[in-house]
């Protein structure tokens, strides 16, 4: 108690120096926390986006993730309805799983024959209602909401394409896409209707839609290899173009109703899906959900090896981004930690020199070396504690101000600008670890001056001028 009281008074003795040290620490702590708040928000934003679009977990054929991009339909899941039912009937999973929805991915070619253009695409079939439910997941309380998935309530042959697909297929005017650069020499259409052979194929699978196909400027034909290996065509009505964030994806992405995609790939054969997306209430339920899913899937794995992959495995870009920000955070912490180390160390060294006679006096009247060490380390710890706490307060105030300013930014892979949010408030773990880290650095900084003070010869210290 006496050591603490003495340490406080010693710090107050040279207020200007203590204040300068405190401010240096506080600014350091604030910088760390603001950057931490920024990177936390990126983490939460990306986390939310991936969970909203792909769920926490996906049940797939064991080899689909690594080999499925070449031929997705070769890795289809049979009995997916039974798997979904088993999940819904499991008393533990039932309470954890918010949405369980099947999807079908396939490769093909989309063509706008009226314009005489086509391109390879990745087609995806979704249950639109489920996707909209998934898009409502917001466990981190982000201020931004996801747009409604336009396929819900749309006609059976409706499709959504990436803006890149729309651009290449020359659908910009029809879809009223404003930012859609046209080539200098626009490829002229010969005005011919869809070729007869393609029209025939299309009619086999989509007889109802084929009548309007040639007339509508929003119609595209999607050619895909069906499960039997023969070509099949679906005529789709593009209802909307959505930017996908990445150019590579934007130029190949086509979404449609799951039933439509299954009809294209499987026709009248028993249908399959390429994955079952599971969205949980909370991300920390992933390990428990996986443990629960493994025995359930084992029942269906006799003829098809199934695997459960979490969203981190499915989205390595997310993991890499978080790792990158963690590395930058660590680098910034190390830099600021070094500044704090030298600042506190300098302050304490000066204090030792100034108080040499006092140290000699304390030693003479019976204070042990450990007592001297304790006194200076306590002073360093107090500097660290006060500086870090001041930094937390500053960071909370500055982040609150910044969050109210309405600033926006566009993180990689997103289309719409997002609110610039610095998530410091509520991030107890980050605040405590930063505070604890800076206090430890301060103690470490004070250790050497304290050790030096304790080693002083009493007589020499008393003689010091």
């Amino acid at each position, binding site marked *: 108690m006496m050591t603490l009281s*003495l340490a406080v008074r010693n710090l107050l003795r040279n207020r200007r120096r203590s204040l300068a040290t405190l401010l240096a620490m506080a600014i350091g702590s604030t910088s760390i926390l603001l950057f931490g708040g920024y990177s936390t928000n990126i983490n939460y934003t990306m986390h939310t986006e991936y969970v909203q679009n792909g769920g926490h977990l996906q049940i797939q054929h064991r080899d689909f993730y690594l080999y499925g991009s070449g031929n997705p339909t070769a890795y289809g899941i049979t009995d997916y309805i039974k798997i979904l039912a088993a999940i819904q009937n499991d008393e533990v999973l039932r309470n954890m799983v918010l949405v369980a929805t099947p999807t079908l991915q396939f490769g093909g070619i989309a063509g706008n024959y009226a314009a005489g253009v086509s391109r390879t695409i990745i087609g995806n079939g979704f249950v639109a209602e489920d996707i909209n439910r998934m898009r409502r997941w917001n466990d981190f309380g982000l201020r931004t909401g996801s747009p409604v998935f336009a396929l819900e309530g749309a006609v059976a042959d409706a499709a959504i394409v990436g803006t890149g697909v729309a651009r290449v297929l020359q659908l910009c005017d029809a879809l009223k896409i404003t930012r859609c650069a046209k080539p200098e020499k626009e490829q002229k259409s010969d005005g011919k209707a869809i070729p007869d052979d393609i029209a025939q194929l299309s009619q086999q699978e989509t007889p109802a839609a084929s009548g309007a196909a040639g007339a509508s400027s929003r119609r595209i034909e999607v050619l895909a290899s069906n499960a039997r290996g023969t070509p099949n065509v679906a005529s789709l009505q593009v209802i909307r173009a959505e930017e996908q964030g990445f150019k590579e994806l934007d130029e190949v992405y086509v979404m449609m109703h799951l039933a439509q995609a299954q009809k294209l790939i499987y026709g009248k054969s028993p249908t399959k899906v390429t994955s079952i997306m599971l969205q949980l209430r909370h991300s920390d339920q992933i390990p428990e959900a996986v443990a629960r899913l493994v025995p359930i899937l084992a029942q269906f794995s006799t003829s098809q090896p199934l695997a459960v992959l979490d969203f981190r495995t499915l989205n390595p870009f997310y993991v890499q981004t978080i790792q990158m920000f963690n590395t930058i955070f660590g680098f910034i912490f190390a830099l600021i930690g070094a500044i704090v180390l030298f600042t506190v160390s300098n302050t304490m060294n000066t204090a030792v020199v100034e108080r040499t006679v006092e140290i000699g006096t304390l030693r*003479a009247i019976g204070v*042990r070396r450990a007592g001297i060490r304790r006194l200076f380390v306590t002073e360093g710890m107090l500097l660290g504690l006060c500086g870090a706490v001041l930094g937390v307060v500053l960071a909370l105030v500055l982040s609150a101000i910044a969050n109210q300013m309405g600033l926006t930014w566009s993180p990689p892979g997103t289309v719409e600008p997002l609110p610039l949010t610095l998530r410091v408030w509520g991030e107890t773990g980050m605040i405590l670890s930063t505070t604890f880290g800076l206090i430890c650095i301060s103690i470490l900084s004070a250790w050497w001056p304290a050790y030096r003070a304790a080693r002083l010869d009493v007589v020499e210290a*008393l003689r010091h001028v």
Partner: protein
Amino acid sequence: MAVLTQVEKTYHLDSVSVPVIKGVDIVVRRACFTVLMGPSGSGKTTLLNMIGCIDKPDKGEVIVAGCKVGDLTDDALSDFRAQNIGFIFQNFNLLPVLSAYENIEYPLLLAGASSKKRGERVPKLLDAVGLGDKAKYFPGQLSGGQRQRVAIARALARKPKLVIADEPTANLDSETGAAILALMRQMVERYAVSFIFSSHDPDVIKAADDTIFLKDGTIHGIRRKDEETVP
């Protein structure tokens, strides 16, 4: 109270060795007011430091309060000083961040004394040194004489057997110095504690029971009031 036998001490300054104490034998008597007299550089402070257990001789033996202090570890020496020795410095050496009361209380806190014991002891000491009304004053708010009174009270706080004072009146005017001397003399009688201090002020000799004359690191004479001068 303190016995020094054939004590030698040499300081090494770069490549030069300076012998400051050369085979000194001293006996500091219990409850006596002992003065080390001698010119600057005679070794007074070095002898005091060794008697006060903050310095060690190169040769010889130092026994304080019946304890061979040369055998003690640094921590044990610290504890020994805290229990047996009080210090009064020429420049008072009070802790500037503590009040007069707290400066006197500090050694008691080091000893782990209860707040009740501290609450009884400190005001008594403050009264004894005539500063009962200055308890809350900080050293910076006190005069030199008052600071030295606080230092005397601090030195006596743990009821030591021996108080070491290195030229305690050197930084005081003659009137204040005389008052401090009288106070220390009073404390010797009141608390039966041995005082040993260094001085080259001839007036101090009058107040001393024993006077040890030092020159060039050797004893040139010892005068005890109740005995004849020993050459």
